């Protein structure tokens, strides 16, 4: 996503006539224009809140808002209904300018039951709008959520604009002629909530109804129930005049182009497919299901018509093992997992490093250690990615800052892997993987080809083949794939003699090979972009980040600037090797702040590498940074 300065406030003339309002009469309620809006849908995990959030998001995307999302779901697939651990939520920020995060505090909260209210109310902005499904506020549910008295009856919600809707009742009424029955009736209530939200925030309705028709094409009664329920929610807003004002957020002035709304896992999968096309190498994805990386497997397994082979292995080790085999055999070989799975792959990754075979290792980080917080974002695998292998085994480590970057970073990782004949670690995290934002589509034809040349002929004297004879520029060894006549050779985990690749226990050779492998990776610094500095270049304070903190950092810097504090920011996509100018960038500012969702891992690297007194801002609560947390730290450092 482009990170331009925020545009001027929305112009009143901006057209909204494309907005569809079903067959509903126009509302007479006055409309207020907002430049941004944060809403959160919260309910039981069976209430379909992710779906409602995604529909609200897509409608906003197609309307032309900039946006960013933050889904949050329980680690348990089916936590007991009505309980706090069972609450699932979806937050989205939409704006008429280029926003950077899913927002700190919701302006509007939908609470489908008491547990959702209990868990989320503390985040709602004072004076914000609260929509509750009153039908679920019975004694049992109140009790499960830990309420002693019904918050709808006492004064605890006085500070908010509360819209009370008996959603169960009205949904039942709305779907009664559609043919759905039994448990399916109440399944549509998320669409009631969505309809009400569509009215309240002037969202176009067409994208939602169209989506429902397509999605449930084979079950027309379900499609109708959802649409009826959606309309009922919309009409409930009009007829009850649920609020005195409705709100609208005009389209954002994003750079011109064609956009789609994308999450990181899907974009990453598509990037791998594009890299396969650009390199001419068939894509092989060897993996084992794990949250939050599995969606990459799901997406790739649907794309067999792109020549993609997915291998759901018996375990994480076999996932990476099959990937090594596929790389040896001449594929674009990729494995993916999250922290615990990467730990299991560690031995094999060292083998791949020793074999000097090109492959990609994706780590979609989550809260750790161990099973940790499987559905929450954290950046705590940085040091593990840099150093978490036995022996001296430095690998290139790249990281993705936001969903819209995932596609190109996947291609970049492949470029480096095949050019330098090395495994590459590509870091994502739960926030990037599941969060979504508008992505300006690239022109696929303009993406550079990834040149790959398999060895064809012997490269040694007397027609011999020397598998560790290196390219003079890249130090890459030749990629000679089985089936090539005359290049039969053996590789393995034992130390190899330089050039010949034969097993060698010679002390000087081990030193040479260790140095060579390290040098090969370090040299990639000459082939990656310099680090760019954003904002006030001569500011005293530089905020340095990596990964999914990108949006929070940029937004915090904006806020600091608005309050008169000059700030520069820089974001690392390359964690190893580091950009060549990083030292220079760091030294041109008096103070360096490094916010991370870990206990200070990049901080350690920067301090060790540059002997610099950088300051950390660290958080491991399983949540992304709030913009205010970073902007307050910046103000404090500016004193």
């Amino acid at each position, binding site marked *: 996503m482009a990170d331009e300065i925020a545009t001027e406030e929305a*112009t009143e003339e*901006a057209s909204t006539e494309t907005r569809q309002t079903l067959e509903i009469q126009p509302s007479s309620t006055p409309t207020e224009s907002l430049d941004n809006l944060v809403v959160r849908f919260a309910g039981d995990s069976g209430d379909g809140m992710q779906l409602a959030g995604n529909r609200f998001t897509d409608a906003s*995307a197609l309307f*032309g808002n900039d946006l960013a999302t933050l889904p949050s779901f329980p680690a348990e697939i089916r936590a007991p209904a009505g309980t706090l651990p069972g609450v699932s939520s979806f937050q989205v920020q939409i704006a008429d300018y280029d926003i950077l995060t899913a927002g700190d505090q919701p302006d509007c909260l939908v609470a489908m039951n008491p547990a959702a209210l209990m868990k989320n109310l503390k985040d709602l902005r004072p004076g914000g709008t609260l929509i509750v499904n009153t039908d679920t506020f019975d004694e049992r549910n109140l009790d499960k959520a830990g309420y002693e008295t019904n918050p709808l009856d006492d004064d605890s919600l006085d500070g908010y604009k509360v819209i009370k809707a008996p959603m169960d009742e009205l949904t039942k009424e709305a779907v009664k002629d559609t043919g759905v029955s039994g448990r399916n009736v109440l399944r549509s209530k998320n669409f009631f909530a969505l309809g009400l939200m569509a009215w309240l925030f002037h969202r176009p309705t067409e*994208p939602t109804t169209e989506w429902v028709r397509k999605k449930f094409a084979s079950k027309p009664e379900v499609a109708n129930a959802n649409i009826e329920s959606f309309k009922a929610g919309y009409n409930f807003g009009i007829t009850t005049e649920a609020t005195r004002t409705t709100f609208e957020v*005009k*389209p954002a*002035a*994003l*750079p*011109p*182009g*064609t*956009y*789609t*709304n*994308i999450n990181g896992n*899907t974009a990453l999968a*598509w990037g791998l497919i*594009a890299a396969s096309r650009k390199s001419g190498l*068939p894509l*092989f994805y060897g993996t084992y299901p794990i949250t939050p990386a599995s969606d990459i497997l799901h997406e790739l397994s649907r*794309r*067999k*018509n*792109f*020549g*993609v*082979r997915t*291998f759901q*292995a*018996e375990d994480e080790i*076999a996932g990476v*093992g*099959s990937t*090594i*085999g*596929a790389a*040896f*055999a*001449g*594929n674009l*070989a990729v494995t993916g997992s999250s922290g615990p799975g990467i730990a299991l792959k560690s*031995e094999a990754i060292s*083998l791949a490093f020793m074999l000097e075979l090109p492959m990609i290792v994706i780590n979609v980080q989550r809260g750790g250690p161990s099973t940790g917080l499987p559905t929450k974002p954290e950046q705590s695998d940085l040091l593990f990615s840099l150093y978490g292998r036995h022996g001296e085994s430095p690998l290139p480590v790249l990281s993705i800052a936001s969903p819209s970057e995932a596609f190109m970073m996947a291609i970049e990782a492949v470029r480096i892997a095949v050019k330098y004949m090395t495994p590459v670690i590509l870091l994502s995290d739960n926030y990037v993987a599941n969060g979504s934002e508008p992505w300006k*589509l*690239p022109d*696929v*034809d303009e993406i550079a080809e990834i040149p790959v040349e398999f060895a064809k002929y012997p490269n040694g004297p007397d027609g011999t083949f020397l598998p560790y004879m290196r390219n003079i520029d890249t130090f890459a060894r030749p990629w000679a794939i*089985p*089936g090539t*006549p005359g290049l*039969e050779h*053996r*590789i*393995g*985990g*034992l130390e190899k003699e330089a050039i010949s690749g*034969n*097993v060698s226990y010679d002390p000087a050779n081990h030193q040479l090979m260790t140095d060579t492998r390290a040098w090969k990776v370090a040299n990639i610094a000459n082939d990656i972009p310099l680090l760019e500095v954003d904002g006030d270049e001569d500011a005293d304070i530089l905020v340095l980040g990596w990964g999914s903190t990108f949006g929070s950092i940029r937004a915090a810097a904006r806020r600091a600037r608005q309050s008169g504090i000059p700030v520069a920011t820089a974001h690392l996509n390359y964690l190893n090797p580091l950009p060549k100018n990083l030292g220079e960038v760091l030294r041109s500012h008096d103070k360096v702040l490094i916010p991370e969702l870990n206990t200070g891992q990049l901080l350690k690297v920067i301090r060790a590498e540059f002997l610099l007194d950088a300051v950390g801002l660290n958080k491991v609560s399983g949540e992304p940074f709030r913009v205010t947390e970073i902007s307050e730290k910046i103000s404090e450092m500016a004193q």
Partner: protein
Amino acid sequence: MTAPSYTRKDFQTDQEVRWCPGCGDYTILASVQQFLAGLGRSREEFVFISGIGCSSRFPYYMNTYGMHSIHGRAPAIASGVAATRPDLSVWVITGDGDGLSIGGNHLIHALRRNVNLKILLFNNQIYGLTKGQYSPTSEVGKSTKSSPFGSIDYPFNPVSLALGAEASFVARTVDMDRNHTQMVLKSAYEHKGAAFVEIYQNCNVFNDKAFIQVTGKEERVHNRVDLEQGKPVVFDEGAKAVVMRGGEAVVVDSSSVDPKAILVHDETRENPSVAYALSRLSHGPYGPTPLGIFRRVARSTYDAEINAQMEGARNDMGDGDVSQLIRSHGTWEVKGPSPNGG
């Protein structure tokens, strides 16, 4: 193109073979090289992948493509080769420690999936490379460096295990019998899918004569049970026979039964029960022990299936187009450059 003509030498490398003198691995290496030379198939189409252990040095001595990988993982690595390259002949060299202990999981899953791999498991019933600890096939009570009071681990029967893991081809042979080894290799090679071959391999340093009952001049006469397709299962110069009783394979005196009651070996039986019963005749090379092919049934291979799905998808949906793919979730246009003009 005419088939290349090779001798055993063409499959040898210039690397010094480093097994202990007298090790059964030498014999197996010679058998494999000789067998491959006789096939007349181009050398570059063979890939040998091993894990860790004495046997796993094997690829270094084969003038083909090869990889000496990490402990236990060879079947997984080889699966990545075989699934993507049906044009190659992919072999896994493993041992009882490598294949049944640390790598047991990969072995059973490669068999279940019927990945087109020829898996040669050199069973010497000991850890050789780490200098003599008991292995998952060592007999109970075995005294080794790590079991000075005798091993208390109940051993695997590799053939039973492979049959239980849905292997479509299961055989057993012994290092010293090069003709038998090559006969088994040939069947394994011709089999489409995963072929599991247990090879009794003598470790003369840490577990000498473990297989004496099927290799010793005297002993083998009484104990070696040769399974031959379509023939009655008899041994001990015809004196003993195998019959099925209540689902079990039982050894009887040939003279005590109607010849028609003697089990006729059929490796192509779809149901593996009889093959399994045969594998239970002995739980290790003690007493009457069958050698030969236990099971050989046709089943679609993993690489055939994965490639068929790919081709099917291409036929149904057309070759993928990345530009269309990235537009598949719906798009909108932003027209510039005026702010909020979208």
